[in-house]
């Protein structure tokens, strides 16, 4: 009843410019903070002289690493059991690292005062190329950690090495390819920031900041700062994009809190664009070598991969504790492969910490890119059409639920149907014919196919936690006497439209319009505990909690309706949004009628309390596995290397679609992200560790000019484990699309014998690839 297309409830305020973002928060007497950052990638701090800054007439406080050390706050835990400097004490370890924090009466004075701080650095050699991080004699970045003699962080493996090696040894065909998924940044239009207000009288700390996980932040503040958790309130107001970059706690947040405690005033700190790009969570940075073993007729038998993962100067990736490489080990993808094995080595480099951010479903992006590129490399080796090769190897519908060689249990799917639909929509055979004609004329046209299986909706909590906090989400639903409802959830939208989608779920379950449901989120004082919005987990987890809490209310309504109808609850049925006596629809009682009765003096059966409220906690039994088939068509100008994305067909299956319009919006955005990563986005560093993508002039986001008019299709395979069969879709397109674009470009370049090219496929890169002389895209262009 309530599922279907409807305009987003939140749009009314956003299109009128009436959203409230962190930077819109203004409190009486508020002061402003600014951060002094390191110009060096690696340097010892000899001294920090703040006297001139302190003498500035409008400066109220200058906080350094030494100040924080006195409070035992100079270092904070990361989301991956490492520690990260809040303000540097001993060394700076990446360009843009936080060194000092100034609190002043206005933002201009705060910035001016930064220039008055005198830091004496002794520059050290930097580790920039991840491939050299483990060289003997490489500078040791983390000498703050006991006993560290190198930059190695972890080795991790999954799958069956012996069996996989055996398959490779006897395989008819093997292919191998080195590839880089470069360091990129989610670059949300709203940068990070915080307003911290510590009330000395009540001892209560309120922090406004754009966090995707407000409850996790509160608990972490309690653990780190030793403040009692009930005296901390985290408010995440409207967020201008997160993509995973707003999951963790940044040094600036801690500084704003300390600034407020020290000055006794609220302190606002908002970073600028360059600070955001230089210091907040990056994504990817996986140097991979993939291999596939197959038969000559194109049966894939084994896949293995070695990864060198660049984690930056502090290991701060945000993923479930058990999985240092996130969910990368879903890299056997959508195929029926006998055996698989991966090894991942994480290293420190002199770059910003982070990892996983940018709509990647805990590194499913890297995994899908790897397998989808490798399948194309195999297709080239076998001289087989890449779509045909995929159809030959995709899992069959009857194989579900399917346990993958690395232990994932895929819930449901009909993969061949999705790929065939995409091929139909694209007119695949015609495209291939057109390509053949063009090739004969010397024109470069490419068709790229990718198929992805996503793994989203973390927990279950026995496998998934962050710093010991299990990934289960609460929900509370209260129905007012007139039948209007308020839903409280723990997750926090950054543009995903939760206020609409979740209201629709309640509406669907209770037979009321979605407009009658208010969704409250983002304020830890007002919402139940839960782990937040990332990894496409909101609909799979909080959405499930919402359906279940609504069903609890519906069951309670049944008892009340029975009392109203003087019937036994067993004799009632739920139809058309009403409880009625079986076979007699005229007796039907709507939720509004029942709600009023529940609040009235109606005599209720023994053991039933009044009112119509419920709470629940949803611990997902499994992940959900959305999937899709993408086809991209490009034209490449051989004289300039410019790539034009001509068409993009995307067939997505995310199970039941609650609001198809919102789903399509998520897919549109993700596809644009994919085009951006494939063609232009990269954060490269020169040999001294200077960040070469620290503004939107250098870090390019795609515009409408680079995006074709997306052609979407859908199949619907409900998730059997989710109460309404939904699977989550926030990251699907970001996960699936880069491989389609790269495959298309490589396909276009096939006449030159090209089998692979690393992202981003800028005109220069494509031209060099054509000329057999590609350059490293993660380093300064030579």
């Amino acid at each position: 009843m309530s599922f279907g297309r409807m305009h987003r409830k939140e749009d009314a305020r956003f299109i009128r410019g009436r959203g409230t973002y962190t930077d819109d928060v203004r409190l009486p007497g508020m002061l402003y903070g600014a951060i002094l950052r390191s110009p060096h990638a690696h340097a010892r701090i000899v001294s920090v002289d703040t006297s001139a800054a302190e003498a500035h007439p409008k400066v109220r406080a200058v906080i350094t690493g030494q100040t924080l050390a006195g409070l035992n706050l100079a270092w904070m835990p990361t989301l991956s059991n490492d520690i990260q400097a809040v303000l540097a004490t001993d060394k700076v370890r990446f360009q843009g690292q936080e060194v000092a924090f100034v609190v002043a009466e206005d933002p201009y004075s705060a910035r001016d005062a930064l220039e008055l701080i005198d830091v004496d650095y002794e520059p050290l050699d930097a580790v920039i190329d991840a491939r050299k991080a483990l060289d003997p004699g490489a500078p040791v970045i983390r000498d703050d950690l006991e006993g560290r003699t190198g930059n190695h962080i972890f080795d991790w493996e999954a799958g069956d090495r012996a069996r996989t090696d055996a398959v490779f040894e006897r395989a008819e065909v093997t292919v191998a390819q080195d590839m880089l998924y470069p360091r990129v940044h989610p670059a949300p239009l709203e940068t990070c920031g915080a307003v911290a207000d510590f009330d000395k009288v009540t001892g209560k700390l309120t922090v406004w900041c754009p966090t995707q996980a407000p409850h996790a932040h509160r608990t972490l503040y309690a653990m780190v700062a030793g403040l009692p958790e009930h005296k901390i309130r985290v408010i995440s107001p409207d967020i201008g994009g997160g993509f995973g970059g707003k999951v963790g706690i940044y040094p600036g947040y801690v500084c704003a809190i300390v600034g407020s405690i020290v000055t006794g005033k609220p302190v606002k700190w908002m970073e600028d664009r360059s600070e955001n790009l230089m210091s907040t969570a990056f994504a990817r940075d996986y140097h991979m070598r993939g291999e596939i073993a197959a038969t000559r007729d194109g049966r894939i038998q084994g896949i293995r991969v070695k990864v060198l993962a660049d984690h930056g100067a502090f290991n701060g990736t945000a993923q479930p504790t058990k999985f240092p490489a996130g969910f990368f080990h879903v890299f056997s993808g959508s195929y029926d492969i006998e055996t698989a094995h991966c090894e991942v080595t994480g290293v420190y480099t002199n770059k910003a910490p982070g990892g996983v951010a940018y709509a990647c479903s805990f590194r499913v992006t890297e995994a899908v890119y790897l397998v989808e590129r490798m399948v194309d490399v195999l297709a080239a080796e076998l001289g087989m059409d890449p779509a045909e090769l995929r159809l030959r190897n995709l899992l069959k519908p009857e194989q579900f639920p399917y346990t993958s060689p690395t232990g994932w249990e895929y819930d449901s799917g009909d993969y061949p149907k999705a790929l065939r639909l995409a091929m139909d929509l694209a007119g695949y055979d015609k495209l291939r014919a057109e390509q053949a004609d063009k090739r004969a004329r010397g024109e470069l046209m490419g068709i790229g196919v990718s198929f992805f299986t996503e793994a989203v909706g973390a927990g279950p909590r026995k496998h998934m936690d962050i710093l010991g906090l299990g990934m289960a989400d609460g929900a509370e639903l209260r129905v007012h006497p007139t039948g209007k409802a308020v839903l409280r959830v723990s997750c926090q939208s950054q543009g995903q439209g939760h206020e609409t989608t979740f209201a629709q779920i309640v509406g669907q379950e209770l037979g009321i319009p979605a407009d009658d449901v208010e969704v409250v989120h983002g304020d830890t004082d007002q919402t139940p505990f839960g782990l937040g919005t990332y990894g496409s987990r909101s609909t799979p987890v909080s959405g499930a909690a919402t359906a279940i809490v609504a069903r609890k209310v519906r069951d309670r309504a049944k008892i009340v309706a029975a009392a109203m109808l003087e019937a036994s609850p067993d004799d009632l049925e739920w139809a058309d949004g009403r409880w009625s006596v079986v076979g007699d629809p005229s007796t039907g009682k709507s939720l509004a009628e029942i709600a009023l009765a529940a609040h009235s003096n109606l005599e209720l059966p023994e053991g039933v309390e009044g009112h119509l409220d419920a709470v629940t906690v949803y611990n997902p039994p499994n992940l959900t596995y959305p999937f899709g088939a993408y086809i991209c068509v490009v034209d490449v100008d051989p004289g300039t290397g410019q790539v034009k994305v001509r068409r993009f067909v995307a067939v997505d299956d995310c199970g039941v679609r609650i609001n198809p319009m919102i789903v399509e919006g998520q897919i549109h955005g993700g596809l644009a992200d994919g085009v951006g990563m494939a063609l232009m986005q990269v954060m490269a560093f020169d040999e001294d560790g200077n960040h070469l993508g620290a503004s939107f002039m250098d870090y390019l986001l795609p515009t409408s000019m680079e995006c074709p008019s997306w052609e979407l299709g859908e199949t619907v395979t409900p998730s059997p484990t989710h109460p309404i069969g939904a699977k989550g879709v926030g990251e699907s397109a970001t996960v699936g699309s880069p491989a389609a674009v790269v495959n298309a470009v490589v396909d276009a370049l096939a006449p030159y014998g090209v089998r692979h090219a690393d992202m981003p496929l800028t005109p220069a890169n494509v031209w060099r690839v054509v000329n057999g002389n590609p350059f490293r895209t993660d380093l300064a262009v030579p």
Partner: protein
Amino acid sequence: MQVPATFAYERADSVPHALELLERYGPEARVVAGGHSLIPMMKLRLAQPEALIDINGLAGELGRIAVEGDELAIGAMVRHTELLESVTATDLFPIFRDAERVIADPIVRNRGTVGGSLCQGDPSEDLAAVFAALRATAVVQGPGGVRTVPVRRFHQGPYETAVAPNELLIQLRVPVAAGTGSAYEKVERRAGDWPVAAAGAVLRIEGGTIVQAGIGLTAVGAPHFCAPEAETYLEGREPGEEAFAEAGRIAAEGCAPHADQRGPADYKRHLAAELTRRALVRAAGRS
């Protein structure tokens, strides 16, 4: 939030007033026109002028596009959008439309000015190549009066121009001649990006022979944004694919591109040749 350092601000209401203000504040003052080059640098604190002299009040006086005699006059305060939409300018010289469509984005084009583009002196400025190809003349006014500078002597190095701190660029004058065709070709990494490389071509063809060729190049280290040897090579020849390819090759030889994140030097040099060739082909088709 990116915030500039403190500065004084004055609004000029005429050219003499602007010159007087420049005189009063001295060399640490800067003129602000569209502000799309200067303000970003101030926000990054790469530029910290002590005073800004706002000349947007001169948009009427310096914002005209008109044919005067055998020249097209373009005021320094003409916005990119105005040049793009000026039928007078783009009918005479389609190179303006070609170039302006791909300079920055509509938001920047609505504010950014022709004068600001040239005075910024960025080695990747598109209009520098366009006016070099057109052999335009810059009109500069200072305390001593008005003087003219050929555009090919206007840029004296990266971010250095012939305009002294106490002077204003007020106009550009482009010679108009029958039989002229012009075109501009640019490679950018993304819409709205600065050029990786770009080339403009202006050809005057009479009786099947090229009588004058103008080639402008930007972002590839071409001295004064032009390619005189290639122009000389073309003059007196018949237009044709081979001649244009050779001119492109010669033009590329005269460039000294630097590698940056837009591309390596060999690629930029290749583009100098390729884009020159393409621009010449299109310009010839339009003459």
